């Protein structure tokens, strides 16, 4: 049942997103072409115009992915469609899990598209070398390997996104328990969770860095590799905890029943 | 739908009357198999349980009988059918004369009127 649910969730969310994906890739190619022909003034101008459009579209891919995820969750669980969703012979846990998993897939594919677009636009030996030099220098400064540095960044970004989705879903679940002004209440909850999580994260970072005697270093300009590692690991732990914690809360609240208008 | 029900009276009574009439007028012959309850229900646009109840009553009256596995049949006993027919006729006639009397005709005048004018305009 879970795969069937996910199939329909993904179908619905990708319906519009795929258009943006294609646009983003096609425009990336166009930009690349104009850039290659950059010696001629007219193409230079066209390149500038098209690349600004492309940046807007790339931003849109990410924003839109989030919007689709939130709309799918809210509409499928709490609007007219919910009359079908909640009468399917599927457990509430599976309904919720399907939304989480398909959302992660959507985020992941959107990020891949964004990378791919940049890759098409800018790939050449020089740029890659410049980036790798920069990364080597940066990671060397902290005594990390390049691969280790990149994976730390990627993993911590990933768990951060997970935690945002998790918090948002729980906020929507809570907001929809109310009998009126559900959207507003959902928004208030998400703001609250976000602020609390940031404050809590900062406190944790401060406490832990104090524990390792690096507190004064964190808020200065010179950060040692050890300190940076501590911050990254802590961030990963914290965001994973939020993700799981809020998933667990949503699951419990959802299992207690919905309140469909 | 095949039959217009009067929502003011119990539906099963109206189904009884309907089937009775179909039997006495010869639409259903003695010993003929009746359609299933479900078919009746669909045809009349009523609840199968109501049809069941009506058929049960008809069975009690002896107009219908059940062959264990095959379904329901009209009785083979022509006397019973005649009887029911007579009762129906008697009822109608009584009602007719009563109404004529209200308009001021006695039985003889009513019959004469009928013979002369029938139901013509």
């Amino acid at each position, binding site marked *: 049942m879970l795969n069937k649910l996910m199939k329909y969730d993904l179908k619905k969310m990708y319906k519009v997103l795929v258009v943006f994906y294609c646009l983003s890739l096609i425009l990336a190619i166009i930009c690349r072409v104009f850039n290659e022909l950059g010696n001629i003034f007219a193409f230079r101008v066209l390149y500038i115009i098209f690349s600004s459009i492309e940046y807007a579209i790339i931003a849109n891919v990410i924003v839109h992915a989030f919007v689709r995820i939130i709309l799918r969750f809210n509409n499928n669980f709490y609007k*007219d469609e919910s009359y079908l969703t909640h009468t399917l012979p*599927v457990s509430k846990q599976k309904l919720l899990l399907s939304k989480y998993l398909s959302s992660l897939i959507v985020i992941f594919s959107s990020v891949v598209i964004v990378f791919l677009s940049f890759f098409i636009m800018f790939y050449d030996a020089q740029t890659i070398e410049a980036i790798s030099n920069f990364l080597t220098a940066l990671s060397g400064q902290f005594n990390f390997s390049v691969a280790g540095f990149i994976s730390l960044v990627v993993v911590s970004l990933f768990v951060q996104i997970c935690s945002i989705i998790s918090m948002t879903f729980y906020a929507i679940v809570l907001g929809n328990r109310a009998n009126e002004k559900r959207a507003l209440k959902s928004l208030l909850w998400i703001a609250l969770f976000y602020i609390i999580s940031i404050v809590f994260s900062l406190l944790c970072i401060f406490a832990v860095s104090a524990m390792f005697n690096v507190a004064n270093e964190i808020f200065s300009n010179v950060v040692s590799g050890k300190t940076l590692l501590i911050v990254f690991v802590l961030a990963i732990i914290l965001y994973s905890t939020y993700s799981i914690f809020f998933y667990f809360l949503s699951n419990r609240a959802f299992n207690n029943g919905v309140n469909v208008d | 739908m095949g039959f217009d029900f009067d*929502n003011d009276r119990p539906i099963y009574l109206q189904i009884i009357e309907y089937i009775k009439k179909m039997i006495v007028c010869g639409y259903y012959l003695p010993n003929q198999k009746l359609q299933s309850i479900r078919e009746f229900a669909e045809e009349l646009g009523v609840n199968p349980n*109501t049809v069941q109840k009506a058929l049960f009553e008809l069975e009690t009256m002896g107009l219908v009988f059940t062959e264990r596995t095959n379904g329901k049949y009209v009785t083979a006993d022509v006397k019973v059918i005649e009887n029911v027919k007579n009762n129906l006729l008697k009822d109608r006639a009584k009602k007719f004369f009563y109404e004529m009397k209200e308009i001021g005709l006695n039985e003889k005048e009513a019959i004469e009127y009928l013979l002369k004018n029938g139901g013509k305009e």
Partner: protein
Amino acid sequence: MSLLEIENVSKSFGNKKVLNKVSLKLEKGMIMGLLGKNGSGKTTLLKLINDLLTPDEGKILVNGNEVGVLSKKDISFLPERTYLEPNMRVEEVLNFFKEFYEDFDIEKARKLLEKLDLDEKARLSKMSKGMKEKVQLVLVMSRKAKLYILDEPLGGVDPSTRDYILKTIISNFSEDSSLLISTHLISDVEKILDQVVFIDQGQIVLHEKADELRDKNNCSVDEVFRRMLKC
């Protein structure tokens, strides 16, 4: 064991008590009419049975199971809303139902759609409200469920379709299934009802066999309802 057992169920929204200690039993093979004015609590009761709301107190059992995955397998529910995604085609919806409901008979659905002149290739967004309602009714009646729950099934359809819908309902319901129809258009459905339940201001005010009610009062269920609830 009754197919549907509702025991002392109450539900409030804020300070407003919508259902107040409602108890109701529905046996196998019965067609029950849940009759009430708009806002009487009919839809709330149906939503509680279908897990779209949770009761504040009381118990609901469907074929012996509490509301959940098992009860949803047994119930085929037609809500008042159009719950289908507008950009889907009818055939996609059929496949959706086939995937999620083991008891969905897709061939039967196709036949019914054809009889109602509905095109399988058509998108729902291109259909009128009445047509969408018909599609939903076809979906619901093409399941071999134990309990069919229809919320205002005749709301937006014309009289000729109404007769066809009633016929479809009758011919599809079997001896081991039951039907619960909520409506405020009583005269249209009363001839197919075994039992009638009047609900008013969140409480059940009458529960009787339809024919007995007519016999007792010498008038239609509709008339009894009007007199009793003064409307």
